């Protein structure tokens, strides 16, 4: 039976590197993914992920458990990304918080059999479109949909108003929608 994360954190806080290695093994994929989605460079992402864990080890005695360990790690990733991409923080704050309504988040996946192969192509096209979004949108999307943080957690983590987070995600979806509208013209409309 695996040791609970809380115990591993306590052991690592006392200076046990083996406990910390288990934590690294457990979280490295999501930490790397977040870095990669923002930086879009494998080597830089690996370097940043490594740096994240070294900083986490150094600051671990100050970790009080007020947030989840993974959220704390993502905050370190984001701060390191701010250092590498100085305009990222500014582009996030400049999003504003003018969006009141949000795009609906339906529970059902886009798996209508009518679209079959086309839906897979469409999904793949949209994944590419996500990759081409600005890094502030990619960061918000990765935190929301891959790291599965709530809007509130993202807002606290990035030190942004809740409205800004919602606005950012809303605008990201709007951009994807525009990309989709241009995509479906030649392929989805049969004259």
């Amino acid at each position: 039976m695996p040791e609970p994360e809380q115990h591993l954190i306590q052991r690592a806080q006392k200076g046990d590197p083996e406990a910390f290695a288990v934590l690294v093994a457990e979280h490295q994929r999501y930490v790397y993914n977040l870095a990669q989605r923002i930086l879009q460079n494998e080597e830089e992402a690996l370097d940043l992920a490594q740096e994240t864990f070294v900083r986490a080890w150094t600051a671990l005695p100050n970790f009080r458990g007020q947030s989840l360990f993974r959220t704390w790690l993502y905050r370190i990733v984001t701060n390191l990304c701010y250092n590498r991409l100085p305009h990222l923080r500014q582009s996030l704050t400049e999003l504003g918080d003018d969006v009141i309504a949000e795009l609906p988040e339906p529970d059902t996946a886009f798996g209508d059999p009518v679209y079959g192969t086309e839906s897979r192509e469409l999904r793949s096209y949209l994944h590419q479109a996500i990759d081409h979004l600005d890094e502030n949108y990619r960061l918000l999307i990765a935190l929301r949909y891959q790291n599965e943080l709530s809007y509130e957690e993202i807002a606290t983590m990035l030190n942004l108003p809740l409205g800004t987070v919602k606005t950012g995600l809303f605008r990201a979806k709007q951009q994807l929608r525009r990309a989709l509208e241009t995509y479906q013209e030649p392929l989805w409309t049969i004259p």
Partner: protein
Amino acid sequence: MDNSLTPEQLDLAIEDALRTYPVMSIPRDLSVDVLARIQTVRAQRPFRLTWMDLTLSVVLALCMGAVWFSIQNLPPLVVAQFRKESILLYQQILVNARWLIPMLAFSMAGFFAALTIPYLRRELRR
């Protein structure tokens, strides 16, 4: 026949793409590299003020305050007597045991140096 997606389907497609946006697999295990690097990094020692520290500080401060207050309020005759006795004692030490004062100084230095031994041993073991 028009196969274009309705606005609801567009939203569904976007939501689906966001939810299925794949988490990238890590090209190599970072544990080994991280462990190698943290061997050279000393973990910060957090600043922690315990209740014991606080209680000791308060007791010490109260004692020092009490001593100071007592000295300030002693009758002048008692203060003079006290000064006379201490000068006599000092003179007696200088005459009969000149070795006592340097020995006391060295003993105190040795005592304070010994207090650091457990901390130094712990640091060396890290």
